């Protein structure tokens, strides 16, 4: 054993072969592998905690997965998503467009800033679930109320991040744009907005996560529909695996959506971040 090792060190071709043989080690520390491993450990911990059991209402991963397949195959999960995603999609689209617009305007113009910043700081700090009854009183229990809840949850962080991103656009780049005779519009479009993109997108990702919370919250607090219906119904009949399967499903969709946002940013808006990542 030792002899072979020394041999391979002293002769170059064998060293090359050794290096080639050890390459799987590099694959082992690849970010994707590490992610998969950490994911597997979390699932394993879930399984163990569920079998222990921590609580009778906490099913292990395997049972939850079985329940997930059942919900998926009888079509109820997809139907529920159809219902839940409607106010969510509308709310996120509105929050994204309006929120980035307001935030950018606040960053560009101090008068808008003075007007807007206090509102959104209060909104961000307020326990928004407390507003739900008021919204129900104002708009009833329909789509509008649910869209409003999604917006209230998602908008503040999107606005405040967009604002900070624009306000902190590097002065030296703006000065450079001025010195090369850029107009105000050119400087906003070609310098300030690209410079602000990473922080705006961080806000969009946080806002999207908050919007998912808002959509489920709306279904739990207003009227049980969609995913919220599966959760409350299965909780009431103590079918905990199905309840957790529904929760896991909405988390997966949320994570997937946030990943897509990150991909869009890297692919189309800040190509230089791709090579380092």
């Amino acid at each position, binding site marked *: 054993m030792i002899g072979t090792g020394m041999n391979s060190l002293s002769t170059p071709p064998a060293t090359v072969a050794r290096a080639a043989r050890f390459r799987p080690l590099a694959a082992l520390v690849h970010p994707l592998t590490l992610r998969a491993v950490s994911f597997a450990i979390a699932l394993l911990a879930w399984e163990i905690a569920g079998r222990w059991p921590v609580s009778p209402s906490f099913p292990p991963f395997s049972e939850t997965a079985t329940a997930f397949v059942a919900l998926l195959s009888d079509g109820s999960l997809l139907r529920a998503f159809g219902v839940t995603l409607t106010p969510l999609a509308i709310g996120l689209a509105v929050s994204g467009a309006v929120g980035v617009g307001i935030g950018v305007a606040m960053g560009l113009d101090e008068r808008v800033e003075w007007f807007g910043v206090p509102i959104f700081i209060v909104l961000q700090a307020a326990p928004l679930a407390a507003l739900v009854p008021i919204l129900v009183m104002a708009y009833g229990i329909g789509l509008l109320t649910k869209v409003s809840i999604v917006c209230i949850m998602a908008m503040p962080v999107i606005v405040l991040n967009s604002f900070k991103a624009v306000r902190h656009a590097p002065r030296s780049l703006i000065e450079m744009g001025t*010195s090369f005779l850029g107009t105000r519009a050119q400087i906003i479009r070609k310098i300030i907005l*690209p410079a602000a993109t990473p922080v705006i997108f961080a806000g969009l990702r946080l806002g999207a996560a908050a919007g998912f919370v808002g959509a489920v919250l709306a279904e739990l607090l207003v009227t049980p529909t969609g995913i919220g219906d599966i959760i409350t119904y299965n909780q009431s009949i103590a079918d905990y695996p199905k309840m957790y399967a529904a929760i896991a499903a909405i988390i997966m969709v949320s994570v997937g959506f946030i990943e897509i946002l990150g991909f869009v940013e890297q692919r189309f808006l800040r190509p230089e971040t791709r090579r380092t990542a």
Partner: protein
Amino acid sequence: MITTLPAGSAGMPPSAHPGRFGDGIPAAAAPDGIVEVRGISKTYGGGVEALNNISLTFPEGALTSLLGPSGCGKTTLLKIIAGLVAPTAGEILVKGRRVTGPGPERSFVFQDFALMPWATVLRNAAFGLELRGVARSEREAVAERYIEAVGLKGFEHKYPHELSGGMRQRVGLARALAVNADVVMMDEPFSAVDEQTRRRFQEDLLRLVAQERKTFLFVTHSIEEAVYVSNRIVLLSRRPSRVQRIIEIDLPRDGDPDRIRRHPDYLDTVEDIWQGLRHYVE
């Protein structure tokens, strides 16, 4: 030949053109200089008096260095000439016209590079032309030429974070040259690189200056660098800055760089400036 003018005669035209440019420049171009600084003072908001009544003339087609201790207001003066900072008093004339803001006849190389991290070398170098609305193919052709001239051929599609500090500064130089301004202002362009690279850049700069036949305003706090690259050195005193001395330099620039650095005039001038500064410090 080295001429030292007393500070009081700062506004006087130089008696002769530096030899290196002698052939290409019409004799009439010099009288008032391409850039006139008239009684410029600058006091910043916090009460910091950066410049106090500075008057200067920058001759056309020459490279003039502003040399002075850190914090004496070199960047401030350059940015006032560039139209990026408003003076508290005084006025700047460029080609006889009063400066009220940036203009197409001036371009700037920034101390901190000011490159857009999301844009390739090519787009950064072409950015001045992009802002002027020059068509893409045209501006990229121009930028490619200057990227090659500053020695970055092959790096057109790299991003700034993939370049060394010195290479980034060259992108900034290519961008400033690509807009074809008459006056190119450079704020300590070589301060971010090691001594070896710096010397190579200085040699490249001399070559570019000879090729481009533009007026260069160059800020540095290295005496050797100023003497090596300049036709004229303006020595600034400590804050609030005044013009302490103006030194004309006429070294044979076309030869071997090492010969210039060993030239008795080069060594004498470096020593002379150093003695003057030391006298001033003590």
